[in-house]
């Protein structure tokens, strides 16, 4: 009996030899460095490798460091503007690509929208660097708009994908029903499409925000002098003295990302 039962058991990856070991290794590789990073952010000494006792010292030091606060503020501004713009554009793009009859060349449109997912980031960065340099020379403008534009562009696909997924799962009959009940196209959109799309838009926005907050390569290439964001500031610091202040900043960044993503998950769970 027991043998027969075992033979009839379906294939399961969990019962393959070494599964547990590989899984444990993966988790270790993923989380051990982060745990070490967070632990040493509380080190009272100057070393990021020798533990000397618990303290909030480096958090205070980072908080009192004007450069850090300035870079963090800039990061937040860019992420906020870029994710808002990207989400708006992505919503329109998603509506444009799903609320039409499939036409030839639609796959090309998908590819165009999702370009940032395929073109290597460094290539985009270099291209933007050169392109913006031309504009800077021509206009003399050196403000934050370059960074916001660049971030918006590469955030669009991240905002687009969840919104499109949501739209495709949506019953078109609902919009028809709204039109049947005297809703003009705009009011049907406001009262039916948008509320139902909202979880997708939130997901897209959060994703775009986190992606923007976290970007190094394109930012490093596009930024004008003195326009450090938190990640590029940290990169710059790493090239000089390394103190647990970096750990503290990283931990805060990590905490913010985790917080945003959890809040979003809680929100989207409720939406369904």
């Amino acid at each position: 009996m027991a043998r027969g039962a075992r033979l009839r058991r379906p294939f399961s990856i969990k019962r393959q030899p070494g599964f547990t070991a590989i899984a444990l290794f993966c988790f270790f590789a993923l989380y051990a460095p982060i745990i070490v990073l967070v632990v040493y952010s509380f080190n009272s000494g100057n070393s990021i490798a020798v533990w000397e006792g618990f303290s909030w010292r480096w958090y205070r030091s980072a908080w009192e460091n004007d450069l850090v606060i300035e870079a963090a503020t800039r990061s937040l501004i860019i992420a906020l503007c870029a994710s808002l713009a990207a989400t708006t554009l992505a919503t329109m793009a998603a509506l444009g690509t799903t609320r039409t009859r499939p036409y030839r060349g639609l796959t090309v449109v998908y590819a165009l929208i999702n370009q940032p997912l395929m073109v290597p980031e460094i290539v985009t960065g270099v291209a933007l660097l050169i392109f913006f340099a031309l504009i800077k020379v021509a206009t003399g403008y050196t403000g934050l708009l370059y960074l916001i534009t660049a971030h918006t562009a590469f955030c669009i696909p991240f905002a687009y994908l969840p919104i499109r997924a949501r739209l495709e799962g949506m019953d078109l009959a609902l919009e028809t029903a709204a039109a049947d009940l005297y809703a003009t196209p705009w009011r049907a959109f406001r009262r039916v499409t948008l509320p139902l799309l909202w979880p997708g838009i939130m997901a897209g926005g959060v994703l775009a925000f986190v992606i923007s907050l976290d970007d190094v390569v394109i930012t490093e290439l596009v930024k004008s002098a003195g326009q450090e964001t938190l990640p590029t500031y940290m990169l710059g610091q790493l090239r000089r003295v390394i103190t647990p202040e970096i750990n503290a900043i990283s931990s805060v960044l990590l905490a913010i990302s985790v917080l945003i993503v959890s809040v979003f998950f809680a929100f989207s769970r409720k939406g369904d």
Partner: protein
Amino acid sequence: MRDGGGTTKGIAVRGVSKVFDAAAAAVRALDDVSVTIHENEFFTLLGPSGCGKTTLLRLIAGFESPSAGEILLDGAPLAHLPPFRRPVNTVFQNYALFPHMSVMENVAFGLEMLGKPKREIEKTVNDMLRLVRMEELRDRATNKISGGQQQRVALARALAPRPKVLLLDEPLSALDLKLRKEMQIELKRLQKDTGITFVFVTHDQEEALTMSDRVAVMSQGKILQVGSPREIYEHPAKRFVADFIGETNYLEAEIVASGHGQAQIRLSSGAQIAASLPEGGRLTGKVTVVVRPEHASLTLDAAKATFSGRLENIVYFGTDTHYHVRLADGSLFTVRMQNARGHEETDRINAEVGVILAENAAQVLRD
């Protein structure tokens, strides 16, 4: 018939065709359909899957526009009106309730879009919820109520703005038999109470016959016959109509004489009987005649029989019994007789029996 008048109240569909340009081939979903639906009428579109019922509703509601022809409401063309300007509401086949709104908000939606004052909306919504007996569940989410309840909410939502015409696309098809019967009665009551024109789609012939003032039988994008349930059932004009609705016997016959919608026909057995002619156009020569099984009876008295055959099979159904009689030309003829108390089972299989046709039982078909 009040067909064709531009000033009649109700819906006039005139020569409407609808061609869908699918990728490979064009689909002719409606083919030169003309029909008039009167005000306050319970009008049913009956036909098999894919015959174009939903397409006709969508054209009336304005979700599609006709490839040819026009649709008038109370004498005025609808062509230039988008769906949200037409005084027409729909109960969708899958209900299409707004999942992010409560029962009450769903019912209020149309009134809000029409910009009615708050108090009026509140009152109408309450009336509607009472009408469909959903007052207790007014604050429920629409995905947390049963299929029958969803159906009633969809009905209330479509009725609340008091449309001139209510389109119902197989609204009962998802319900179990008992609920379905209840809803049939309720729908009929609602139509009477509100006086709204109902255009009801179904592929269930019994539903069509019991509920409708008039029925249009459709097949392959065409309306084959329009008439009261009795006309459709007792005087089908075409083979498809006779076949689609109820059980039928077909007899080959020849027209001997005709006039005033009546004809003398000679059956292949040689017997001459009277038969009704279908409307329109003259018919001569060989025709097919239909006889409903309950319009015939059996006899052992050969002198009374219209024709005779060999009793091949007896099927007992409780309220009635079906007798299958093999005729001389090889075809099978079914007779249905009610079972009565004390009426002993005397018929024997393989006996030679006579068939008597009731008066006016034979109907000549156009095809």
